[in-house]
């Protein structure tokens, strides 16, 4: 097994293979949902990562992110947390969910927890699983890491509404995630942009205060010149330097808490 963290580039003489496909698995309450699952070929064992897609939907970008994790030696799964709303193009489904009041936090927590258990049960798992999410998925990554004890590491990328004022609570999102900070059950990496309007640097500081208060293990990075979604290369918010550094920090973080990833050779 070869370490392929951000500091260990692969060499051109390596065999490399990956299996990436849509699967069905039991989600919240055992209800069947679909997921995109990518894993390196080889004997493992491999750490796992659950990816929570962003508000714009279970889209091509999240399939790319999922394969990127597999390329770096992780069992990577991205469940379709909009499954219960039906099927259509990712943007049509995102619009439907948005117009229906949003996806309920309770079903997201259940789906993500079940996806992590699925990875842990996989014969090639090393028993460690992290969670990663951007945008609304960043908020949900923090939420699931606080509402369950299933994860060994969590990454919140610019998750808005972690600090959620009472007037913004809804039937689908009845509790502000920050109220669960005392229950955070694993180390947390946070990547944020200084120009973001949600989360603002002030709300990131507010979350940081809460994590300090409860003695939680966290690592936050605030990028100047970046706003919301600075990993999204098709969008106007893409910031190459922040994105490259963010991916590097994330792989180092996961390697520290999930164990050495493998390439499967």
């Amino acid at each position, binding site marked *: 097994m070869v370490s392929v963290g951000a500091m260990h580039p692969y060499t051109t003489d390596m065999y490399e293979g990956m299996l990436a496909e849509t699967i069905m698995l039991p989600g919240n309450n055992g209800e069947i949902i679909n997921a995109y699952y990518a894993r390196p070929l080889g004997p493992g064992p491999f750490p796992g990562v659950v990816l929570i897609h*962003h*508000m*714009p939907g279970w889209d091509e970008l999240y399939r790319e992110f999922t394969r990127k994790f597999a390329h770096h030696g992780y069992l990577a799964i991205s469940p379709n947390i909009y499954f219960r*709303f*039906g*099927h*259509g*193009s990712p*943007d*049509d*489904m*995102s*619009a*439907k969910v*948005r*117009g229906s*009041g*949003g996806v309920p936090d309770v079903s997201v927590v259940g789906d993500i927890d079940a996806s992590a258990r699925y990875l842990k049960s996989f014969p090639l798992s090393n028993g460690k699983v992290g969670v990663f999410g951007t*945008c*609304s998925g960043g*908020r949900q990554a923090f939420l699931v890491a606080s509402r369950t004890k299933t994860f060994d590491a969590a990454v919140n990328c610019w*998750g*808005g*509404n972690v600090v959620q004022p009472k007037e*913004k609570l*809804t039937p689908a*999102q009845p509790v502000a995630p920050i109220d669960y900070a005392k229950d955070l059950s694993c180390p947390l990496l946070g990547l944020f942009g200084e120009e*973001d*309007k*949600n989360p603002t640097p002030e709300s990131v500081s507010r979350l940081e205060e809460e994590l300090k208060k409860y003695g939680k293990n966290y690592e936050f990075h605030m990028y100047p010149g970046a*706003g*919301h*979604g600075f990993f999204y290369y098709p*969008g*106007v*918010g893409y910031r190459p330097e922040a994105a490259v550094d963010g991916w590097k920090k994330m792989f180092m973080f996961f390697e520290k808490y999930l164990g050495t990833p493998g390439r499967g050779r």
Partner: protein
Amino acid sequence: MCTGIVETVEVSGSGKGPHGWFKLEQVNVSYDHPTDASLEHALNIDFVNQSEGPSSRVAVELSPESARNLVKAILDALSLKQQ
């Protein structure tokens, strides 16, 4: 920025989607991430008919200034009708 800002209104009329004309039932107006417009946030309008499936949708993503101009144009057109 995931604002979660959504306003919903019932409407009657027709919209033309990828499969032709369909009956409109609802309009969802949000200020949040666009899918296609080169804007960090946009005023998104989805004209939909939930009972006909998610693809029965006419979508626009506008800059805030464009959205205000649209509102003005609609109100101007309606006021001309009353003259």
